[in-house]
Each structure stands twice: as structure tokens, then as C-alpha cells.
């Protein structure tokens, strides 16, 4: 029994010692080497998993594919009309901004990265990318896919890799705006890997399913205008000061293969 107690405390001390060395960054060179080896070996498995998922998507009914093509053609036509209206609105908006002497156009620097795996946490709401400190990435940098669709932010940075916390992680909190008449603001919070909710929306503002949600720019480091998703369900209780909405993320958070990290936000002023 005494021997067991000695062994237990000896192991505890060794674990504490290793954690101490990690905190003092003494183990960083060794950790970087091991991390590189693990990422190099996990990359083919991640690619294979993405390939399997693609094959699953391709094997659909022909009728279903035809339906999808027809629906996409309709959306494309609608988008062309919207693009013209948007251009007119944008010109009008620019003129008004000049008149009010209020310019706030933002420009930002970003870097592309590949997703090389998922972390080993049970709820799986974090991913690993192959860019790190050496590439100019820092903690809390926003991460996007496609044309500026926000999927998360940098949680942890190593020399050559980083861990991204997805927006459906329960510790993810990002300021957002709904593209309704009132431009309602709220807080996007993850739902423990299940989905995304927007909380603290003022009770008196009207939001509808289908409204687009974008970043409000109120979260440090996250520029305004990044698409998050669309409102799916509105939850409103008369006795509560705020209403909530369930948001359907535009990006498929379960299958991401390539991302862009916004490393710097430039604020430009005109005139």
C-alpha cells in the first residue's frame, strides 16, 4: 500500500513537472516536432474522410439532382436581379455617406489554410489548420470559408498550426447583426456542437425566419459584414426582455477542408 502511494505521488510529481515545463515553454521545440509529425500523418486520413464525404454527396438520385439544378438556376436568376438592385443601393449609400462625411470602409488581410484534422475532444467543435504563428496568425483571428462566411475563430496557435473554435462550440461568442429593418444586434453563441443561437435580441424588434445574419463588428478582431447564416426559428416570450433565434449556419461546419484566416483589419478613410 505504501509502495502504491509512493508510485502514485511520483507519477503525479512527474506530470506536474512536465506541465510546468510546458508552461515555461521549455518543451516547445519538442512539442513542435511531435506536432509536425502528427499533422503530417493525420493529413491523408483527413483527406480520405473528405473524399468519402464527397462520394456520399455525389451518389444521389438523378431526379433529385435535376431538381437541384432547376432550383439553382432559379436562384441564380434571382441573384442577378438582386445584384443590380444592390449596385444601385450601394451607389446611393455611398453618396449619402459622402454627404454625411462618414466613411467606414474596412479592408482586411487574410491567409489561406487547409484543415488537417479535428481535435480529439468528445464534442468535436474544433478543427486544426496548417498555419500558425510563423504565418502571422494570432489568437482570436476570425476564420472564414467561401466568400466571407464566418465559421469560427482561432483558439490556440502553435508555430506551424492552429486550433479553430467553430461557431457551434459552446464557448463561442460573436457579436452579430440581423439584416432586418431594424438591423437588430445580438450575440451568436454556440449550442454545444448542435447548432448556433443568437441571444439578447431586443424584444420589440421584428425578426423573421430567412433573415440573413452577419457579424456586427462589435467583437474585437472580427470585422463587420461576414456572413454567419440565416434565421431558422424565432423564440419570443412576452415576459422576457430579449428574444432568441436559432441560426442555420451557411457553412457546413461538419465538413470543412479549406479556410481563410483574417489576420488584420485595416480601417480606411476616404477624402
Amino acid at each position: 500500500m505504501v509502495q502504491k502511494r509512493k508510485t502514485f505521488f511520483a507519477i503525479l510529481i512527474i506530470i506536474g513537472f512536465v506541465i510546468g515545463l510546458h508552461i515555461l515553454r521549455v518543451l516547445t521545440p519538442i512539442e513542435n516536432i511531435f506536432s509536425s509529425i502528427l499533422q503530417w500523418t493525420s493529413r491523408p486520413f483527413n483527406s480520405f474522410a473528405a473524399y468519402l464525404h464527397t462520394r456520399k454527396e455525389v451518389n444521389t438520385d438523378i431526379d433529385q439532382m435535376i431538381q437541384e439544378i432547376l432550383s439553382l438556376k432559379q436562384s441564380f436568376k434571382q441573384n442577378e436581379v438582386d445584384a443590380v438592385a444592390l449596385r444601385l443601393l450601394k451607389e446611393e449609400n455611398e453618396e449619402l455617406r459622402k454627404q454625411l462625411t462618414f466613411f467606414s470602409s474596412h479592408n482586411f488581410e487574410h491567409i489561406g489554410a487547409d484543415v488537417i484534422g479535428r481535435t480529439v475532444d468528445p464534442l468535436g467543435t474544433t478543427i486544426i489548420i496548417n498555419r500558425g504563428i510563423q504565418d502571422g496568425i494570432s489568437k482570436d483571428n476570425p476564420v472564414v470559408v467561401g466568400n466571407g462566411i464566418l465559421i469560427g475563430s482561432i483558439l490556440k496557435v502553435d508555430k506551424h498550426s492552429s486550433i479553430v473554435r467553430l461557431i457551434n462550440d459552446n464557448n463561442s461568442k460573436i457579436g452579430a447583426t440581423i439584416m432586418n429593418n431594424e438591423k437588430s444586434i445580438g450575440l451568436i453563441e454556440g449550442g454545444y456542437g448542435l447548432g448556433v443561437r443568437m441571444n439578447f435580441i431586443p424584444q420589440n424588434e421584428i425578426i423573421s425566419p430567412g433573415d440573413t445574419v452577419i457579424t456586427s463588428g462589435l467583437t474585437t478582431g472580427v470585422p463587420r459584414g461576414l456572413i454567419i447564416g440565416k434565421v431558422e426559428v424565432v423564440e419570443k416570450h412576452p415576459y422576457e426582455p430579449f428574444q432568441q433565434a436559432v441560426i442555420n449556419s451557411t457553412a457546413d461546419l461538419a465538413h470543412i477542408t479549406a479556410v481563410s484566416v483574417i489576420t488584420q483589419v485595416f480601417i480606411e478613410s476616404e477624402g
Partner: protein
Amino acid sequence: MKKIIDVLLSIFLSFLLVILHIAFLNILPSPLNALNTIFSIIVLLIIVTNSGKVVWISFFVYFLLDIYSSTPFGTNLFAGTLTTLVIYWFHKDIFTNQSLLSTFVITAAGLVVFRLMYTCINLFYKDFLWSDLFIAYGWEIVCTVIVALILHTLFFIISKKMRPSFIK
């Protein structure tokens, strides 16, 4: 010289375990990707070798896992290494035989201990949706126990067949 080769082999085995675990995590569909490959193999090693060396292998394995994990460094290392020590003692003093029941009990009890310690440490850093977590842990225990039992059966069938009395 033999000791150096032993140490190098242990390091290599640890890397292999972690790579296998990450591979299954990525390839298997949900909920099968809840399988804790590392734990099932560690249990098999304890039952087959009955050696305390497995605790040091698990120390290195969970060190590697902590590098790869988004949880604070030391979470997997602390929980995993101490759990391996506990199940080693469990096997040495209580379930001392190499039966399927021993494998079943050691794997299930070990995982409960591991996830208890893991969750307690993580409570300082994040909050959980408990129902979701218990479902994830439940699937992990089911998948890992099944795989541990399969590995146990396969190992003992193969090792039995390799005995000199079977080879003529």
C-alpha cells in the same frame, strides 16, 4: 542496448497509437468515431503484459494527445496516465485473470474514471450540455468495450494457435 531499443520501441508504439486514434476519429462515421482506440489497446497491453511499463507508454501517448488537443495542456496527460495506473492496479489486485469479463470491467470502469477526471478538469474552463456529453461518453464506452473485447479474443486465439503444442 536492449533498454534503449525498448524505449525507442515504446516511443514508436505511442506514436502509432495516437495516429491510429486520430485516423479512426476522422474516417469512421458518427457515432462510431467516439471509439477510444488508445484506451482499448492500453487495456489489452495491461492484460497481456501485466507490466507497469504500460503506464509509461500511456504517459507518452497522452502527452502527444495533449499537444493535439484543444483542451488545456495536461488534461489528457493527468487523466489518462492516472487512469492507466488505476486500471493497472485494478488488474493486478482484483481482476487478476485474463478473461473477457476482466477486459470488460477494466475497460468500462477505466473509461468512467478517465472521463470523470477529464470532465472535472474541464469544468474550470468551460461549461457543458450534460445530456450531450453523457451521450458522447456513453457511445465511447460502448464502442471501446466492444473493440477491447474483440481485440482480446483475437489476441488470445492467435497466441493460442502459435503455442508449440499446436505447431508440428
